[in-house]
């Protein structure tokens, strides 16, 4: 590898620089015959290959969504806050806008969880105080909608909670009934806890 760069780094840089160099060249030579057709043809061909294979490098994207049939088991992650009385509240993702904290645990190493937890706790406290003082939430009526609707706090709900002191990352596994989309049961296990006061978490009434 070049000077400590990984293969992914090299592909990422090459894709970015290569694409814009090619574009600059096409813009420069635009008046020559067929330049525009070659440029558009090349860009669309690369995009087609990326979309057929399902592997690409930005800015070449694929739009593969919900590609596979849903399995009978499905695992995802939920984030909860804990107040000083051990009471839990589901995380309002507007606090960490623009992230939607959907599947963090597939992409973070265990070492990074405390860092993420501290950040989530800090952002949650800030977001809470904004909502309590009538300040603007991280997303307003005029902002472009987040890709997904998420659980959102309201002031009345927040009044029932003391200071947040911990963040719990749960791993939730959904089990569906055979040949059905009805949920049979959920398993919710603590995946990681970030707190300076572990005693609070031991008193948590875990959500069912």
């Amino acid at each position: 590898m070049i000077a400590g760069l990984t293969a992914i780094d090299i592909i990422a840089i090459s894709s970015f620089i290569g694409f814009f160099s090619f574009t600059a060249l096409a813009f420069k030579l635009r008046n020559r015959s067929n330049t525009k057709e070659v440029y558009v043809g090349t860009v669309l061909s690369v995009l087609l290959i990326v979309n057929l294979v399902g592997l690409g490098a930005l800015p070449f994207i694929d739009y593969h969504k919900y590609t596979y049939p849903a399995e009978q088991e499905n695992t995802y992650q939920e984030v909860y806050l804990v107040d000083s009385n051990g009471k839990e509240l589901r995380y309002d993702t507007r606090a960490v806008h623009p992230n939607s904290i959907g599947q963090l645990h597939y992409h973070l190493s265990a070492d990074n969880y405390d860092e993420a937890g501290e950040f989530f706790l800090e952002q949650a406290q800030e977001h809470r105080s904004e909502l309590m003082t009538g300040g603007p939430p991280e997303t307003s009526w005029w902002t472009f909608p987040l890709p997904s609707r998420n659980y959102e706090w309201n002031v009345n709900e927040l009044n029932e909670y003391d200071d947040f002191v911990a963040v719990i990352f749960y791993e939730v596994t959904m089990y569906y009934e055979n040949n059905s989309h009805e949920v049979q049961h959920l398993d919710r296990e603590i995946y990681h806890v970030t707190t300076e006061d572990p005693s609070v978490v031991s008193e948590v009434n875990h959500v069912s």
Partner: protein
Amino acid sequence: MFRNYVRNPKLDSPLNIALVRIVLGLYLIWKVVSINWNAVGEWPLFPYGYYEIFAFDIGLASLPYLQWIVVIGLVCFVLGYRLRLTSFLTSIILTYMSIILMMIQWSGNTEAIFMSVFIMLFYGLYSEQDVLSADGVRRTRNRDLNELNSFLTTRNLPSYRADMLRSALLLIAILYFGSGFAKIVHGNPIEWATATSLGRHIRSSHYRLGIEPVAGQLLLDMPDILIALGALTTLILEVGLLIVLIFGLPLTIVVLGLIGFHVGVYATQGPIFLDMIIVLLFFMSWDKIHSYISTGKSIDLVYDEHCYFCARSLYAFKLLDLNKTVNFYTQYNTPAEYRERENVNFDDEMYVFADGNVYRGYHAFRRLFKQFAVTAPLSWFMTFPPVAAVGKRIYTYIAKNRDRHFVCSYDPSEQS
């Protein structure tokens, strides 16, 4: 209702090209200003860190400033000002910012920015086709006065190619095709297009997001056969768009189906595909809608034939006149009934004769704006007294000083 630019990129008017550019630019401005780039730059770690090589300190710290540079670039893009340069530079910066964002929010919402960057670059590449733009008006300086006069007074306009829209439509179709292809080849289409699979996907998103949309519950309570039919239709529409474009099959039903699918996802799960709804609307026959809602009543406009500035100013209006309802006259060929009127001096001001009324100067422009659906709101705005007061002063200043500042009067003998 929707145009297949792949089969026929020719248009009777450049309106669609300009409208899509404006909507694309405004949509990107909306997205870019909606994101807290300070927060993006301060994120402690990247859950999707494939592109961490781009997350160097100066780059992250610059994001809030780059945001406003991009907004300036996008405003120029909306206006169609120096399209090639603005589209290129704005695309580079926006791509860099979106790569950082993608490492935090790996979603279709972010991917749509990359899709838009490609469309912006197609506009830059084919910028000479976008004549209803600031660049288009600037380029009129390369045409002499006779040429402009003849353009304004002719009844038949040339056709306009829209290769940027053709390329954009193909790009969108490839993305959909890839999505459908992956479900068929990488996945298992038989299992995918069942009520069980689709229902589980929807229910899983409800649990994951902590929401219970009413429409989502209603959908899940529907008979399995209907849910499976919805899934199968989605698969057919995704793969079908590219095929329909290439073979010239009816496009509207497929695009409406895709929009319906995205609206359904919006109602049952959230605005996951909102971007795609906006992008698909780019390919509506906006020219036909504009033509339909613009007034059909003819007006007569008289301008100074020797005024180069006047002819250049009227150039964009001529392009908007899809219904051919504006009769452009000069002081020499205007109908006698107008020439013989008292208190009329065609050398001093522009005139519009409409509905038995005479509009001059600023008010003539206001009446001209009212003629076209896309500019009618401006006409209404121009009636506000403060706006009218400023507008009249500007018009009077230009009219009086056009020889001095605006390269206005031409000696017809020089034009031969």
